[in-house]
Structure formats: C-alpha cells, structure tokens
C-alpha cells in the first residue's frame, strides 16, 4: 500500500461516510416509527389493518432492496399522480431523498416483524393487570407493553441497524455519492482495488461496531434490573 494513495482516498471516503451516516440516521428514524405503527396494526384484531401490515411486510421483505430503490427512483417519476404532486415530486426527484424513502420503507417492514415478536412476547397477565388497574389503552402501551417489547426486540433490532447501514450502499446506484459510491469511483480511477476496498470496508466495520456497541449499552441499561 502506498501512502499517497491513502492520503488521497481517506478524506474522500470520510466525506462519503457523512452521507452514509445521514442516510442511515434518517431512514432509521422514519423506518422505526413506521415499523412500530405496522407492528401495532399487525397485532390488532381488525382484519383489514393486520392484513395490510402482513401484505406490506411480505412485499417489502420478498423483493430486493435494489428493485425497490430503482422502482421509486426511476419508476415513480413516470406516474402523473406523482409528477403533479409537488411534495411527492420533491422526494422522488432527488437520489438521496429517494434512497431515504426506499430504505425507510424497507427497514420498516423488517422492524415491524421484530417489534411484533417483541409485543407478542409480553405476558398476557401483565396486560390484564394493567387493564384491571384501569389504565387506558395508550397509557398501557406506553408504560407496559412497549418498554417490555423493546427489551425483547433490541438484540434483533441491532442486526437490523447493521443491515440498514449496509443497505445505504445501494444509494450509490442512484447517483448518491456515499462511501460505496466514492469507493467505486476511486477503484476505477486508481486501479488500487484492494486498498480502496480495505479502507471503505474498515469504515463500514467501524460504523457497525459503534452501532452494535451502542445497542448493547442500551440493552444493558434497560436490563439493569436483572444484573446483580
């Protein structure tokens, strides 16, 4: 490895890391809330709502993320409905915004499955006890069901966060220059394929390591009643 190359590549890839972090943060922030909504819909007794949530998660988990990104970026702009709506057009017309849309909708589907598993693991007795205490539905969810569900779901959700970080690399296929986008450009410019891969890969590994460590710390904090 020669030092000049590293000195040239690292700042460029770090610039890309900013974009990757931004994409991840926005799509996780949107995707988590959507996923929570879908998980609640999925376990509701309303057949229309739970059917919709189930269909949503089947479609988004059954197709590759790349197809979803291309469908949103290239496909939606063709529809008159989207073209004439200023807000929708604002989202679809830009690669980064479109990538956030696709990533958020995609991670929402996986998040809803994880949270559903968490919500279903809450013992019925606890919910009944809360009901017997006269807690309203919202209060019960906020104070009893959600805190217990998130504890159960956190390890799996950490994996999903890593998958989202990896998913942001696909934004490079629709003109967004993040770590993978810059790495591809540098690979074809310098022909130093291994070196660029090593630097870009290390950036991703460190990002994922930090995320996993944060999730573990949060998990330990939430489970501190079990430590002795």
């Amino acid at each position: 490895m020669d030092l000049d190359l590293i000195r040239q590549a690292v700042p460029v890839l770090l610039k890309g890391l900013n974009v990757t972090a931004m994409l991840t943060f926005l799509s996780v922030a949107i995707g988590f809330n959507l996923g929570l909504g879908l998980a609640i819909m999925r376990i509701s007794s309303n057949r229309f709502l739970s059917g919709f949530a189930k269909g949503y998660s089947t479609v988004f988990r059954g197709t590759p993320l790349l197809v979803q990104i291309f469908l949103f970026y290239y496909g939606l702009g063709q529809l008159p409905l989207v073209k004439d709506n200023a807000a929708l057009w604002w989202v679809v017309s830009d690669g980064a915004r479109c990538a956030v849309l696709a990533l958020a909708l995609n991670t929402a589907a996986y998040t809803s499955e994880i949270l559903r598993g968490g919500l279903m693991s809450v013992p019925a007795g606890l919910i009944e006890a809360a009901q017997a205490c006269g807690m309203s539905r919202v209060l019960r969810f906020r104070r009893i069901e959600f805190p217990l569900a998130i504890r159960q779901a956190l390890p799996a959700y950490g994996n999903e966060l890593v998958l989202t970080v990896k998913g942001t690399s696909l934004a490079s296929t629709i003109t967004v220059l993040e770590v993978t986008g810059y790495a591809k450009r540098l690979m074809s410019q310098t022909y130093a394929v291994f070196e660029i891969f090593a630097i870009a890969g290390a950036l991703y590994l460190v990002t994922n390591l930090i995320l996993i460590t944060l999730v573990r710390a949060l998990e330990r904090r939430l489970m501190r009643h079990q430590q002795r």
Partner: protein
Amino acid sequence: MEFGLLQVWEGGWVSAIMRGAAITIAVAIAAMIGGFVVGIICGLIKWGRIRPLTYVVDGYTAVIRGVPELLIIYLLFFSSVEFVTRVATAFGYAGLADSGYAFVIAVIAIGAISGAYSTEVVRGALAAIPQGHIEAARALGLPGPRIFRRIIAPQMLRIAIPGMNNVWQVTIKDTALVSVVGLQELMRTAFIGANTTRHPFIFYLIAAVVYLAITLVSQTGIDQAERLLRLRSRK
C-alpha cells in the same frame, strides 16, 4: 396502455424477463450450494476452534457480515476483470470476458456472501447437538469420520434447515446486486427494458413481482420440506 404494458408484450420482453429470472435462479442455486459447502467447512472450524484457521474464519464472517454486499461485489469484479481479460486474450478467447465470466464472478461473489451466513447457521446447529451424543459415540470407539457421518451430520442438517431457509431468502435478493456488474439476470433485464422502452415503472414493477413470486414459491416449498422431515423424525 400509457404505462407501457403493450411495449412489454410486443417487444418480446416477456421471454427476456423469463430468461433473466432463470439466470437469477441459477446464480442463486449455484451460490447457495457453494455457500453451503463453505459454510459446513468453516462452521466445523469455528465450532471446533481449530487454532490458526478459526481466526481466518472469524475474520471472513466478520468482514462479509459487516461490509455492504455491493462493495464486496465491486472488489471481486474490479480485481478480477483485468486478470481474466488478460488470461482469456492470451488463450485466444477475447470474448470470454463478457459472456460466461460474469456468471462465474457472480456465483463466486454471492457464494462468498451466503457462505459467511451459512457458517454462522452451521456453527449454531453444531452447538445445538447435545455433547453427550458425541461423547457416547467416542466411548463406543467409533472413528472420527464415522462420528461425523452418523451422529453429527444428520442432526446438524435437520437443525440447520430453518436457518438455511433464511440464508436462501437473503441469497435470492442478493443476486439482484450482481446486475451492477453487467450479468444479464432479472434485474439487469428490467434495467435494459426500462431504458430501451422508457417505461421504467412497469419494468421494475414486473421485476419486483417476479422476485416476490420466486421468494414466496420457494418459501412454500421449503416449509413443505421442513414439515415432511419433521414428520419422519416423529415416527
């Protein structure tokens, strides 16, 4: 017909998409088989903590599971394209670089990715086998290879099925990524169709539907197989 359904039908794209889907399935199956072989070998190494090799395997699974698949595909493709072209030209097959070669690289790349996930599944399945079974076999004086064939492998395979099912689902979806390096599978065909006819919406929608069909059909098939296997073990 303003979305281009007519163009899809008249332009002969239906058969092109079918051919693309066949290549997608071929890549996925080949990568899955290769990945499973890698997974068994690496899983055994990881499970037995065979000293120097286990660090290599740990590094392999950590890198593949932490680095985007797209970046791995770029690495394998860009690092090999020059080499392969030179070798192929030297032997007088200058055209090789654009035909069968992309398929081979795709299988290697996707196989390496699914291999890392299979490794974790196999290691987990091996760890789930009760230690007493292996000790009992040793006490009976069975030789190592036969312990593996008669005691370890049958249990490991059965425990690994749900996990391998997940790996298969991920592998099918990962095959879409090799379209970026030019293999004419389902995604690439949809891309070409979208650019030629200028009707991207319908082409990517069709691609999504075909992927969904592949995942749902294989899911049902695997569920069926799992049930059969479970029934037989109950008897």
